[in-house]
């Protein structure tokens, strides 16, 4: 039934039964592959990727679940700096995504934004943002534009478990609820803010309760099960589209990699990691689709090699792409020419 539900929400039109589900699993696999290859590229000698780089491995079900509900012609999505997965899920090609990490002119932000600042205007991807919590008001503003223009669109506003301790969280959630803006506030709770466990950053350990004071729905969601994500987020999206206002959802998940590349993860035990592997969103969904008879070994193998070649191609593309011309330093700052007479 979550399938039915998701299909009803999904912009993807499925010719054959199970196609929608296979596409979702494929996207999770592509994201995973993209991130793991990024890890290799970043850490290998003669490093061609620089700056902060935050990998999404382990959290794929959230981005892919959102993509199932996302309506490109009217919705928006905004995120923190852990933004590769969502961008791919919303349809960004692997080439401009990888090229951005390499800082090349062919990157999704022309090499000016980097890993933390993926943008894709034509699908409403209003960006990855580096300042923790800084994107929450921006996402609320995107939702405001939907409300103002009565488009029926919503804004998925994502942030981490550490970001709820920023002031913008309180200000934006209250304002969105007061104005009934179609904003879906999503905490991707991977239980760590850099090296800080949630119980050392939030006095209230149940992060759903952190959203209890705003007169809007708040609840925990299993962020490792894409069907649950679609089901639960779907209710909030329907509500927002109906004009009944925002919701606050905590997607509980896990990041397999360190916070960023420099993180030695001393705070993490082998056992914890093993437990997490048991709930790997890809494993969970793979198992389910096999049970449903939607996939088999052959499909998985061919998809594995497909996503591998897509990412290989993206790396080749990025590596072959030119650096931005030095003149690019001075472009894209202002939209107008001054003096400005209008």
């Amino acid at each position, binding site marked *: 039934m979550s399938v039915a539900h998701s299909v009803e929400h999904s912009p993807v039109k499925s010719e054959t039964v199970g196609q929608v589900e296979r596409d979702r699993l494929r996207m999770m696999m592509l994201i995973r592959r993209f991130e793991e290859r990024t890890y290799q590229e970043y850490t290998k000698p003669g490093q061609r990727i620089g700056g902060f780089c935050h990998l999404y491995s382990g959290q794929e079900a959230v981005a892919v679940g959102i993509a199932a509900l996302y309506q490109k012609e009217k919705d928006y999505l905004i995120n923190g700096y852990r933004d590769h997965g969502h961008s791919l899920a919303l349809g960004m090609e692997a080439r401009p995504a990888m090229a951005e990490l390499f800082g090349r002119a062919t990157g999704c*932000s022309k090499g000016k934004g980097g890993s933390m600042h993926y*943008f894709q205007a034509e699908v409403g991807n209003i960006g990855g943002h580096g300042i923790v919590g800084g994107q*929450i008001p*921006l996402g609320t503003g995107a939702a405001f534009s939907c409300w103002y223009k009565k488009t029926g669109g919503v804004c998925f506003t994502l942030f981490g478990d550490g970001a709820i301790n920023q002031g913008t969280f309180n*200000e934006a959630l209250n304002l969105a609820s007061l104005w009934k803006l179609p904003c879906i506030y999503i905490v991707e709770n991977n239980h760590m803010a850099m090296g800080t466990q949630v119980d050392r950053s939030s006095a209230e350990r149940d992060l759903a309760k952190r959203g209890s004071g705003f007169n809007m729905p708040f609840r925990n969601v299993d962020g490792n099960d894409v069907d649950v994500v679609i089901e639960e987020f779907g209710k909030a999206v329907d509500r927002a589209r109906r004009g009944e206002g925002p919701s606050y959802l905590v997607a509980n998940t896990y990041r397999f990699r360190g916070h960023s590349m420099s993180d030695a993860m001393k705070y993490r035990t082998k056992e914890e990691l093993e437990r997490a592997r048991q709930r790997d969103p890809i494993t969970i969904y793979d198992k389910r689709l096999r049970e449903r008879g939607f996939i088999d070994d052959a499909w998985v193998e061919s998809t594995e090699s497909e996503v591998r070649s897509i990412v290989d191609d993206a790396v080749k593309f990025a590596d072959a792409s030119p650096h931005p011309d030095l003149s690019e330093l001075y472009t894209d700052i202002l939209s107008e020419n001054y003096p400005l007479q209008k």
Partner: protein
Amino acid sequence: MPEIQFREALRQAMTEEMERDENVMLMGEEVGEYNGAYKVSEGMLAKFGPRRVLDTPISESAFSGIGVGAAMCGLRPIVEFMSWSFSLVAFDQLYNNAANVRYMSGGQFKVPVVFRGGNGIAHQLGATHSHRVEALYSRVPGLVVVSPSTPYDAKGLLKSSIRCDDPVMFLESELMLNDRGEVPEGDYTIPLGVADIKRAGDDVTLICWSKCVKMCLKAAEELEKHDVSAEVIDLRTLRPLDMPMIAESIRKTHRCVVVDEDWGYCGMGDGIRAKIYDELFDELDAPVARVSSEEVPVPFNHHLELAMQPSVEKVIAKVNEICYR
């Protein structure tokens, strides 16, 4: 031409632009039912309704960011700060988000939002409520900073700012809202990035903006009596700066005083003076002087508050100093 108050000029600009473009809207604290803390938006809620004139909670970070985010998504918000001093609690939203989103996205987004409100020292509001923010925002690539000195300029500049596709920090002055001046009814605009010679002169160039323009005009009158002919340049836009007009004037006068209500060190006045030194060093017959506020927090006591700030007397003294008289 009808004579109207500064606040009415601002209201006309907002009203006309909202009538002209459905995507323009106004939000801020008390702008609606209360008709504006300083009555700038009086009657606008009644005219446009609660969808286009929105009262916000006291959440500057949220509603500043909403302005930026909505601008990224096709609206042209006008965000009122009850005072620019309160923009400091939303500083990151302006200094980072408004200014950088276009660049970081490789030019995929424009950010047509106007932030406006009273800037600078008013009347005994104390240290935290009297900030002059021009230097804080004028230094930022990606932002445009405008600060009018007359009702006429205010209307024309605000209309241009609302039509501008870049984020504009529009700095008014609470103490000027009652000023009256001739303002045409209906549409006209004043270009952004163009200064205005409010008084022509030959001996010395007085550079100023906002509240200090009146002060400089008074000083110029006084100086006239002592055969010093001062040219008064009202910058109107602080970023981008109209260097061509400044240069033309200094090539004529060879002397210049910048009047800045802010603290001196690393302030607007220093930024302007540095540009002048860099471009016009050989034209100068004297150091480019600055009259600014004393480097102290703004005191509550009114005598101290006045003593802290630039004044007609201080401007005249400084002019005499650099004219070696």
